[in-house]
């Protein structure tokens, strides 16, 4: 048993923390969130230079062959920002999908470009605003005389605006899920940003987009395999976000004076901080144990679903409890809490809600007798 980071990880954590402090201090991030800027090309390039994009990929593809826990340590610090941008969606999830299902040629051409930050590949999986999982894939793949075309609308694609290409999940004529690589500039592809109480999502339409036969990656199994390694990294990002909220809220209880004393002396205010501590630490240790299992080659399918559910709820609830402490000032879009609040709602939905993943966790542990097929 050893529950601390190793020396390398502690160093990576510090480098990432310093990076966020220097490149994206809270007032800068708050400004981006207020203006709904979810992609900063210059900053993205810098993270590529440090080696954070595709860092879990093998060295032959431009990665660092990093363990999940190493990568998670970096993303935890990015989450403290919270740094907006396709660091996870392209640098982790898309990279893992291509690694898991791509042809040798796809891996060789695409993966090093993802690591350099020149290719920004965005997974566009679910068509539906509510559902997640294979049943949520409806975009149709049709066979034509010349090859294939796909048609459909992905209602909410996170980080879509930054994309140079998409990994589009399609439903083939035989009913299975097939992943297709689609250039952002291909005729028939359109991206429409969505504004609302969220950030970084856009609607992506595929209108009779032609797909060459060598642009397929694999089926749903590939998505699952990639998610098992990728989701815990997203979870670590949310853990970092909760940590930041925890610290900023605790600090506020020392400096904000009401009725002649710091609000942290009021027990009802204290209770909100206690609740944040529980969400934070629950999210942290569920995530860390999952990372350890994956790095140790221990079966972790249920743990990954658990971590996704727990961290999404933790981020969301930490924001709510923090709002109780910050009250009015915390609802100003110029306040750092608002960046978190907006992102927490976005990530609650991203890649499946807590309810979806709780059910998937139980299904992984205790499969139903007759699995309902969608």
């Amino acid at each position, binding site marked *: *048993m*050893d*529950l*601390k*980071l*190793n020396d390398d990880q502690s160093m990576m954590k510090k480098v990432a923390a310093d990076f966020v402090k220097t490149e994206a201090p809270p007032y800068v991030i708050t400004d981006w969130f207020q203006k709904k800027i979810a992609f900063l090309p210059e900053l993205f390039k810098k993270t590529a230079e440090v080696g954070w994009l595709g860092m879990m990929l093998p060295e032959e593809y431009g990665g660092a062959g990093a363990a999940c*826990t190493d990568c998670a340590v970096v993303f935890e610090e990015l989450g403290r920002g919270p740094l907006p941008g396709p660091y996870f969606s392209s640098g982790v999830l898309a990279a893992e999908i291509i690694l898991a299902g791509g042809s040798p040629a796809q891996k060789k051409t695409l993966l090093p470009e993802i690591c350099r930050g020149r290719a920004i590949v965005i997974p566009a999986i679910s068509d539906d605003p509510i559902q997640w999982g294979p049943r949520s894939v409806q975009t149709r793949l049709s066979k034509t005389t010349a090859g294939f075309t796909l048609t459909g609308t992905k209602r909410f694609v996170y980080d879509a605006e930054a994309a140079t290409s998409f990994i589009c999940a399609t439903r083939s004529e035989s009913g299975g899920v097939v992943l297709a690589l689609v250039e952002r500039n291909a005729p028939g592809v359109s991206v429409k940003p969505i504004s609302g109480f969220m950030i970084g999502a856009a609607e992506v339409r595929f209108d009779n987009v032609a797909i060459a036969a060598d642009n397929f990656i694999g089926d749903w199994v590939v998505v699952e395999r990639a998610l098992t390694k990728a989701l815990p990294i997203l979870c670590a990002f949310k853990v970092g976000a909760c940590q930041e909220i925890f610290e900023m809220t*605790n600090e506020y*209880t*020392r400096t904000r004076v009401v009725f002649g*004393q*710091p*609000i*942290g*002396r*009021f*027990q009802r*205010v*204290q*209770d909100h*901080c*206690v609740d944040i*501590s*529980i969400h934070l*630490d*629950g999210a942290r*240790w*569920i995530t*860390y*144990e999952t*990372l*350890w*299992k994956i790095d*140790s080659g221990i079966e972790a399918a249920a743990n990954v679903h*658990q971590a996704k*559910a*727990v961290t999404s709820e933790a981020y969301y609830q930490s924001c709510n409890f923090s709002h109780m402490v910050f009250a009015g000032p915390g609802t100003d879009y110029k306040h750092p809490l608002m960046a978190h609040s907006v992102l927490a709602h976005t990530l609650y939905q991203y890649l499946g809600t807590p*309810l979806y993943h*709780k*059910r998937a*966790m*139980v299904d992984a*542990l*205790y499969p*139903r*007798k007759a699995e309902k097929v969608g």
Partner: protein
Amino acid sequence: MDFSLQLDTPEISAFRKEVRDWLAENMRGSEHLRWSGIWSTRENDEEYKFRRQLATKLGKRGWLFPTYPVKYGGAGLSLDHQFVLETEIDRYGLPLGSVFYTLARLVAPAVLKFGTEEQKMEFLPPMMRGELAVWQVLTEPQGGSDVANCQTKAIRDGDHYVVNGQKVMVGHHLPPDFLWTIVCTNPAGKRHENLGWLYIPANLPGITIQHMHLMMGIKNAVFFDNVRVPAKYLVGGENNGWKVANSYLELEHGGGGSVAENPLFKRLIEHCQKTEFDGESLMEDQDVRDEIADLLIDLDVQRLMGLRNFWHRYVRDPHPYGGAQFIYFQRMVRLRNSERVQRILGYDALVPDGSVHEVADFEYTVRSGPGWLHGGGTLDTDRLIIARRLGLGRPSQENAPTTV
């Protein structure tokens, strides 16, 4: 990071094998006693007797207090060895914690830290040999959480302290050999500076013990009527009781950590798999599965918080707020599980089943929801401690005392 419970080096592996072989031999004949408890409403004298005998056997080898110096009756082993012993004994479903918890986790560590050499030589060996049952008696009728507001008086009279007062909600259904208690040694003194710690032989004249029938089982009221306690039983020095209290209550408040598995979950799954409603097993019901999901998450978070605290204790780096956080969370999880089990089982949740481990008994689960909202402090005290350790509204954070 490494979450595996195996800490075993080759030396420790050999020790684990030794312990396993020894237990296989000495646990024989206890099969029908396994998976029951003694804290609650179960009063099984045969089981209690078996545990006491087992403790004596362990004590002979120094294994009841493996990390204590050999000269006091311990085995002079490492925390790794203690960990092996705790986990291997737990496998038999007869953890000694419920009988020796007070001794092993609270009293002996405090004597080791605060006792004089003379006291250690006299008090510790019988404890190490497993001969004693000691009750912690702190709560008084006028207050439980406010330990420092202690009204039981112990006034020095020559070589003795004369004790008068009353403690409540302590112990269990079988009598103790010693009482471990906080007393007011200087009624005129300042709060926190007027307290003493006494280790009182339970057979002294003037001590009366009366059963109290409570939600979580039998506890007792202890009356002190002009009890003359020899002064050698004062631990930690004159008016120094608060310091003793502070360092060891951290352990009482979860700072020690926990690595034991919770058997409730496994039993609940088994129940849902074999119970049918309308031709379908409960396990196929989505509502039941959703309850199970939430319950599993709560138990896993609780397990990991306990593991984290254990690790912090293991590396001698106390977690600032982890102890109180664990206890608070555990109380709330028990309360939630109490309702979850009722939702899944219906009326059956209210009927005890003495054949299973107490923690896995559904009726116990239901009762311990509200029943364990306090005990070792209330949940509000827990939150107060967390808040202080976080330094909420304060310029500085209160440190966690080093656990003993």
